[in-house]
């Protein structure tokens, strides 16, 4: 168990709240994009960029950085917003999301934004790339780089993930940490209706991974899980992070219809008001 102070948790909550506001504003400005997953994952992104990742926003190509692969690229508003709030680029640039000439493409594009590790959007491909990074890092006997990969739960419908999951345990990639956004929604409805995933942690364990299931909107649990993952020495580690889709905006929470749409101005104002009213 790794402790985290109440003071630190409060600081992270405030940062995550600011990131959520940026997400809502940029999506409203863009008039399209993915709201639910972006808001649901804001706490995990905040923790990764503010606590877990070894990185240098002022020197994104720093060779010894940890790697973060966002596989479900459609939740890139949370990636962009967290990066902006971490100093990678100006927060004002978030308003260019999905617009012509922007570095912030509708799905992440590394040629335009080289400070991200990979382009993504087409689902099911991120974990394989993260595995490639983990293997390359091991071949180099480099310093202790961690490779984080984030996938959506619906994304696990893609068979390629299971090719990758098998290989990661075969190669005993103890430098690989997979975080599954277990929010139980995908475009056509509930994950358990569209293509039941059931007990994901058992599935991973039967593929010889280690891991745990947590509340992905609780910083204490996130902190503890990342600590466990970073101290795993035998196997790849999965964190099944149960998150609430659209977390923070009560009216939208849990509704799969917010998976792939953006708020209009009225909805944005309502949401921002709610986030502004939170007492930390």
């Amino acid at each position, binding site marked *: 168990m790794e402790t985290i102070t109440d003071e630190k948790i409060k600081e992270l909550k405030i940062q995550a709240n600011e990131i959520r506001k940026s997400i809502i504003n940029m999506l409203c400005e863009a008039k399209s994009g993915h709201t639910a997953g972006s808001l649901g994952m804001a706490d995990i992104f905040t923790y990764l960029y503010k606590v877990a990742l070894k990185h240098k926003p002022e020197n994104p190509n720093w060779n010894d950085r940890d790697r973060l692969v966002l596989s479900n690229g459609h939740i890139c508003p949370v990636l962009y917003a967290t990066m902006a709030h971490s100093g990678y680029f100006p927060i004002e640039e978030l308003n260019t999301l999905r617009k012509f000439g922007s570095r912030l493409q509708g799905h992440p594009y*590394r040629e335009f934004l080289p400070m991200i590790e990979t382009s993504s959007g087409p689902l099911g491909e991120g974990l394989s790339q993260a595995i490639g*990074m983990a293997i390359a890092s091991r071949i180099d006997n480099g310093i202790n780089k961690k490779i984080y990969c984030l996938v959506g739960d619906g994304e696990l419908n893609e068979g390629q993930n299971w090719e990758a999951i098998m290989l990661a345990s075969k190669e005993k990639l103890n430098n690989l940490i997979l975080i599954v956004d277990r929010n139980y929604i995908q475009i056509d409805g509930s994950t358990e209706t569209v293509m039941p995933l059931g007990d994901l942690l058992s599935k991973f364990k039967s593929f010889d991974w280690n891991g745990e299931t947590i509340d992905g909107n609780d910083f204490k649990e996130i902190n503890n899980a990342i600590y466990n993952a970073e101290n795993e020495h035998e196997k790849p580690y999965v964190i099944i992070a149960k998150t609430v889709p659209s977390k923070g905006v009560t009216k939208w929470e849990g509704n799969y219809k917010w998976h792939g749409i953006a708020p209009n101005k009225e909805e944005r104002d309502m949401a921002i008001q709610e986030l502004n009213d939170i007492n930390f």
Partner: protein
Amino acid sequence: MLNQNLKLNTKIFNKDTEKKSTRLGFGEGLLQAGTENDEVVGLCADLLESTKMNIFADKFSNRYIEVGIAEQNLVSIASGMASMGKVPFASSYAIFNPGRNWEQIRTTVCYNNQNVKIIGSHAGLSVGPDGGSHQALEDIALTRVLPNMVVLSPCDAIEAKKMTIAISKTKEPTYLRCTRNDTPLITTNETPFEIGKAQIVWQPESGLAKVGIIATGPLLYNTIIASKQLEEEGIKIKVMNLSCIKPLDTEAIIALAKETKNIITIEDHQIIGGMGSAVAECLSESYPTKIKFMGIKDMFGQSGNPEELAKYYGIDTESIIKEIRKIITI
């Protein structure tokens, strides 16, 4: 006559001329590339010996990854390794790589512009008895349509080896098309090679050629044999080895069209979208020329030995002779 500026194999017309598969040329090339550069890594999808990556893997087991029968994972892992500075060579049969994993190649390799080398072996009808399901006849079309991709189709094992070493030093995503069977060595170790350069391997002893034949892959041999037979009848032909399909040597293609006014393209691949289509795209825009496309005519292959398949599908030496005669008599 053979263009001896290229120091080609002069024994090519002997019955017992040496034969070797392009996949073996790749395997030998990868060993050399891996010896020269520590960053070269190999990945294979349960076809290690078939794709001749075993030559590399035997020596550099720490730089070889067996991914199992999982071609989508294969290239995506390679992309991740390339992002860490490795030079990954990912091999399988061409029907699966780039066939099965095309979208992964598009997104994780080409869209990311990662330095991954895709090795597709057993391409074309020449894989023979395995039958139509395993005869990749679409791989050139699938790869040349992708931005950032370099597409190579060696005429023999020696060229395949040179290509493998050359692409281990480049940064571009690359597709290298290899074939299963032992085929005649057309080039020698001394033959020059440069990515993006086509070569005239056969030309008239004197005067201008009446027909220009553009071949890719081991069918270059059939084309040379056909041209030699017709040379004895005084028919002047130029034969181009277009082993680099992308980037295309447009200058050389236009020059050949200007000289001959008649172009034949020949490939062990679908006519639709293949090397001939690339030539047509070039000439239609810059120097419209009548082209006879020889290749597979919008159909699948079947089991048989490579010779009988080549004859049935019209890409054997006799078929080439027939097409040249048609052009000459018009």
